[in-house]
């Protein structure tokens, strides 16, 4: 059955409920199409409240630090940046909730915010970096166990312009923690390949080369001069810290 089918009352019901629950159709036309509810209109419309409440709850739980900062600063930043509520409403409209797990609903937020900043330059960069960190931290925590080295699943390489992990920790202690000064750094967010804990690691240049080789990607030109014995040592350090699993050597 498709909600767009015209074959039955149930299909017609779903066809009306989808836009209504998404906030794309008002109550009056919905009830004109479906007929009056058996109880009050207030009871019927409570489901719209619940649907919206669920999405905001998911955003709160996935992006708590970002929400804290956004709510705190929404009155001091230019109006174009908008409120947390307005931003989430925009996000829902652009990315209707899909995917079995509620976390899936939040997946596109970092990219959404990056694209939004193209349109609204007043939106701080730190917002999308916070969102990205929150998201990949969750991803690393829940990634399947059997995905090899797990790049972009269990293991993420990021360069942020702010010390995001420290800022997230600070916001956890104090919702008024000031936004730190920019401090660009490369870091790895990963779940230890065996111990199941999400950790951070700051790789050296040799470490980045070791990661690139493991992932099978081309080593950037500025890093090609790193001596190979340094890369071997860095690879061993990455294994020791649980970023990577031991290298599997083919049997002779």
């Amino acid at each position, binding site marked *: 059955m498709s909600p767009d089918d015209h074959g039955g009352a149930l299909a017609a019901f779903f066809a009306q409920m989808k836009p209504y629950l998404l906030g794309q159709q008002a109550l009056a036309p919905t009830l004109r199409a479906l007929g*009056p509810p058996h109880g009050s209109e207030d009871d019927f419309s409570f489901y719209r409240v619940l649907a919206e409440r669920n999405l905001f709850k998911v955003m709160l739980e996935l992006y708590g630090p970002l929400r804290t900062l956004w709510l705190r600063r929404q009155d001091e930043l230019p109006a174009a940046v908008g409120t947390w509520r307005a931003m989430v409403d925009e996000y829902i409209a652009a990315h209707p*909730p*899909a995917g*079995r797990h509620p976390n899936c*609903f939040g997946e596109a937020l970092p990219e959404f915010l990056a694209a939004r900043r193209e349109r609204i330059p007043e939106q701080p960069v730190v917002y999308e970096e916070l969102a990205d960190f929150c998201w990949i931290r969750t991803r690393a*925590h829940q990634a399947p*166990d059997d995905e090899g080295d797990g790049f972009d699943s269990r293991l993420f390489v990021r360069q942020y312009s702010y010390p995001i992990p420290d800022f997230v920790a600070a916001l956890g202690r104090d919702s008024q923690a000031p936004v730190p000064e920019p401090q660009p750094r490369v870091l790895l967010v990963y779940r230890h390949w065996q111990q*199941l*804990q999400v950790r951070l690691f700051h790789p050296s240049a040799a470490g980045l080369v070791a990661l690139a080789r493991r992932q099978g990607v081309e080593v950037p030109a500025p890093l090609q001069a790193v001596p190979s014995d340094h890369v071997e040592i860095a690879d061993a350090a990455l294994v020791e810290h649980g970023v990577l699993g031991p290298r599997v050597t083919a049997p002779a």
Partner: protein
Amino acid sequence: MSHADLVHRGLPHGGLPQRHDGRLPQRHDGGLSHGRLPHGRLPHRRYDGRGLIQPRSSMTTTQPTGVGIGLRREHFAAIEQCERRVGWLEIIPENYVAHGGHALANLRWCAERWPVVAHGVSLSVGGPDPLDEDYLVGLRRLLDELRAPFYTDHLCYATIGGVNFYDLLPLPFSEEAVHHTAARIRQLADRLERPVAVENISYYATMPGGTMSEGQFVSAVVEEADCGLLLDVNNVYVNAQNHREDPRASLAALPLHRTMQIHIAGHVKEGERIIDNHGRPLIEPVWALYEQALQAVGPVPTLLEWDTDIPALDRVLDEADRAQAIWERVASSWSPSHAPRTARSA
């Protein structure tokens, strides 16, 4: 209760060693032979007086009995240290299928110690979208690994045209919805190769297009699907209050003879409405209704749900202990002939 309240969005906890004993999945491990029963139909079993809380070995049944609790990430660390009675555990499988890491390791650790059953929130058995076959493969694999004797979900829809509302939404109580949903429940049981039971949900509005009562609708679906009922006693109470009905009459109107499992939980008042939020202790009228339900259906396994504002594990177990005392009292004297007529003849 919404999906948003039930899923893991948590971050790291202390690591557990991954333990998996490599046992081959077994559909039915002796004892009850579900294969000779209709989908979802489990026989009543009298309480046998044995201890309920023995860690299971590879030879013991995975059947839950007595009162269990939901496995929630907030309790992962505490349950490792827990020395109190934990009858059995219920999980939200969406948190484990295609997931790894600490949550899955913790589940495997628990499954070596207690029976575990799965209670899904996202299959949208009454919805218009096709059942997700890829997900069902993963779900069946998980159920096999847990040796879960049955699977439960909700009599509702959650998804329309690929949009997931992360809630348990009520269907119109119509003949068309009965046929549509029952066919999908049969399909689900076939895919999972085990009995399925569906839960009577809390509903805050009766949807337009319905032609029958909730009791008639639930009965018609489970009879046509030939499946079990997961009897949520708190939902019976919440619905009766919100729709100004007598909860005892609402209970009796359900197909109680199909009950495979019971849920009990707390709720919260929001304005004039009672919300099924699983975030409070049970109130006395729900305890009384639970005892009435048990007397009607017999000593079926009961799950104490606490999914929002989750307190310490000890507090949840205190509540479970109270339920266990009721369960044992009813079980010690129950026989099918004691069941009210509505439960036997529905």
